[in-house]
C-alpha cells in the first residue's frame, strides 16, 4: 500500500509565485530519479512536486565508482550527473510522470551556458512540467571548471540564457551552492537575470579519505556533502536570502529529516521544501514529513502553513 498524506484540517497548500501546490514537500533533485521508483512507496501525485534528477543535453555515464561515502549524519556523493540526456528523458521519464498526473519540476544542467539553453529549449510545452530548476552548481567547463553558482556573473549568464530559451510563463528556480562567501550576492544576481525563485541549497564540497588506502574515497576525489549534518548551514542560507529578498519564492532543502526540521525551513523563509538524502533512509519520507509538519502545526493551533513562513524574521520587522 502506497503511503499518502493523512487527512488534516491544517491548510498545507503553498505557493511559489503563481504556482500552487497541495503540499509543500517536494523531492530533491538527484534523490528521487524521475519518481517512478519512489511511486512504489508513496503516491507521488500526493506530494507537492517531483523534482527530477538534473538532466543534460546528451546521455551521460557519470563518474566511476566509488561514488559515495557515508559521513557522520550525512553522506558524500560524486555521481557526476549520470543520465539519459534530455530527449530520452522527455520521451520516457516525463511522459510517465505526466501520465501519472504528477506535478513535475525538471532540473536541468549543462557544461556551459549554451548547453543550459539548449536543454531548456527542449522543454517548451511539455505537459506536466510546472517549473524548471536550473542546477548551476555544476562545473563550468569554459571557466577552469569553476562552479557556475560560485560566481555571480557566470550564474547570471546561465539564468539569462535559460530565460531566453523558455516560454515566459514557465517559472525558473536557480539552485544555489552554499560554497560561497556571500550567498545573497549570488541570489540577487540570478534574480536580476530572470530567476523567478531560488532552490537553497545544493551540497557542500567535501572529501572523505579512505584510511586504508590513504587516498580520497570517491573516484572524483571531492564530492557533495548532504544530509542532516548540513541542515544548520542550509537554514542559515534560507534565512539570509529571505532577509535579502523578502518576496522571492524559495524551495528550501538540506538535511530535512522530519517535520520539526521542515518547520525550521519554513520559519526561516522557505515556501516549500525538498527532501533529499533522507529518502535513502526512508522511501516514505516525503509523505511522512508532510504528515508530521501538519501535526505539529495542528498542535500549535496553527490553521495554515502560510502563517509560519518567514516567522523567524518577525523580530526584525
Amino acid at each position, binding site marked *: 500500500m502506497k503511503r499518502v498524506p493523512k487527512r488534516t484540517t491544517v491548510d498545507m497548500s503553498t505557493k511559489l509565485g503563481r504556482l500552487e501546490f497541495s503540499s509543500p514537500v517536494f523531492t530533491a533533485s538527484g534523490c528521487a530519479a524521475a519518481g517512478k521508483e519512489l511511486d512504489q512507496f508513496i503516491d507521488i501525485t500526493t506530494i507537492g512536486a517531483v523534482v527530477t534528477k538534473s538532466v543534460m543535453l546528451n546521455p*551521460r555515464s557519470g563518474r566511476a565508482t566509488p561514488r559515495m561515502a557515508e559521513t557522520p549524519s550525512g553522506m558524500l556523493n560524486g555521481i557526476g550527473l549520470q543520465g539519459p540526456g534530455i530527449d530520452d528523458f522527455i520521451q520516457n521519464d516525463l511522459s510517465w510522470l505526466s501520465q501519472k498526473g504528477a506535478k513535475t519540476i525538471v532540473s536541468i544542467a549543462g557544461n556551459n551556458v549554451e548547453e543550459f539553453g539548449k536543454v531548456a529549449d527542449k522543454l517548451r510545452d511539455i505537459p506536466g512540467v510546472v517549473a524548471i530548476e536550473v542546477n548551476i552548481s555544476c562545473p563550468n567547463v569554459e571557466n577552469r571548471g569553476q562552479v557556475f553558482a560560485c560566481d555571480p556573473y557566470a550564474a547570471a549568464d546561465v539564468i539569462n540564457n535559460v530565460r531566453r530559451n523558455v516560454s515566459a510563463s514557465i517559472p525558473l528556480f536557480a539552485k544555489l551552492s552554499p560554497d560561497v562567501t556571500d550567498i545573497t550576492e549570488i541570489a540577487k544576481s540570478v534574480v536580476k537575470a530572470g530567476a523567478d525563485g531560488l532552490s537553497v541549497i545544493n551540497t557542500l564540497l567535501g572529501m572523505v579519505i579512505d584510511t586504508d588506502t590513504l587516498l580520497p574515497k570517491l573516484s572524483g576525489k571531492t564530492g557533495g556533502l548532504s544530509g542532516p549534518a548540513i541542515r544548520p548551514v542550509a537554514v542559515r542560507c534560507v534565512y539570509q536570502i529571505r532577509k535579502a529578498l523578502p518576496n522571492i519564492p524559495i524551495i528550501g532543502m538540506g538535511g530535512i529529516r522530519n517535520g520539526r526540521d521542515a518547520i525550521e525551513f519554513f520559519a526561516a523563509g522557505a515556501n516549500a521544501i525538498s527532501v533529499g538524502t533522507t529518502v535513502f*533512509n526512508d522511501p516514505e519520507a516525503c509523505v511522512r514529513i508532510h504528515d508530521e509538519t501538519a501535526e505539529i502545526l495542528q498542535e500549535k493551533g496553527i490553521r495554515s502553513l502560510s502563517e509560519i513562513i518567514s516567522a523567524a524574521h518577525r523580530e526584525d520587522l
Partner: protein
Amino acid sequence: MPIVHKGTVVDVKKVGSYFVLTATAADIPKDFKPGNFVAVAIGDERSSLILRRAFSIYQVNDRGVYGGTVDIVVSPHGPGTDYIANLKRNDPINLVGPLGKPFSLPKEPVPCVLVGGGYGAAPLFTLAEALTARGCRVDFILGASTQEKLFGMLEARRISTTLSVTTDDGTSGVMGRVTDVLPDVIKKSGAAVVYACGPMQMLKAVSEVATLHGIVSQTSVEESMACGIGVCMTCVMPIIGEDGVTRMLRSCVDGPAFRGDKVRWDEVGTIPADTWGAPEIGGH
C-alpha cells in the same frame, strides 16, 4: 512491491563468523523471489549512520508464530554490520524489501551449479529450492578464506546432489579457490548454468570459467549502495546490453544478479571509454 517494514528482531544466532538474524516483515515472504535483498536501517533518528545496509535474503517464513519473517546472514566488519549483529531479540528493526531483481531461472530443467563465497552463500539456498522444484539438478560449491567463514554446509549438502568445499587455508575441504573445483563440477554435473554470489574477484573468476565452458553464469554483485531502491545512482556497474552497448547500470534495481559475461569485470570502478555517455577526454 517493496515496502518499509517496521519489524522486530525475533532471533540472532551466531553461526561461524556470521550472525543469522530473523526479523518480522509481514509482506516479504509472499513477494520474495530468490536473489532479492533487504535494506536495513542502522538505528533510529538518533543514529549518525543514515544509510541503510543491504543484505541478501537467506530465508523467508510465512507461517511462523510471528507471522512473516525474513532471515539474513550478517558478517560484522564495520559500524553498520556490527550494529545489526549486536541486535537482540525484541529490538525494533526497520527493513525495506524485497529489493532487487531476482535470479533468472532456466526455462528447462537443466543442471545448475551454485557457488557461494563466504556469506555470499546466503541467497543460494532458496534459489536451490526453486531450481529443484523445477526439476533442475543442483550442485553446490562453498568457498571461504577459512572454515569459520563457510556458510550453510549442512544445508547445502541436504539440498544438492554434490557439495564441494574450498578454503584458502585448507581448514575445510580443498585448499584453494572455488574456481579450482568448478570446472570439475561443471563437467560431472553437465551444468548449463552457474549461479554465484560472493566477492567481486570470485564472481569474475567464476564467470570466466563458465564462459570457457560455454555455459551461462548469473553473478550476484555487491556494489556500495546509498539507497538500494534505484533513485541515487551510486551502485552502478559497467554492463553490456543486448545491443552490445555498455551502460552504467544500477546494481540495486537492474541487479544485483547480472549475467557474468555481460559484466565488464576488469573495468568495474571505471567508466570504460565506450560506455554510453562516457566523458570525452578531459570531461566529467
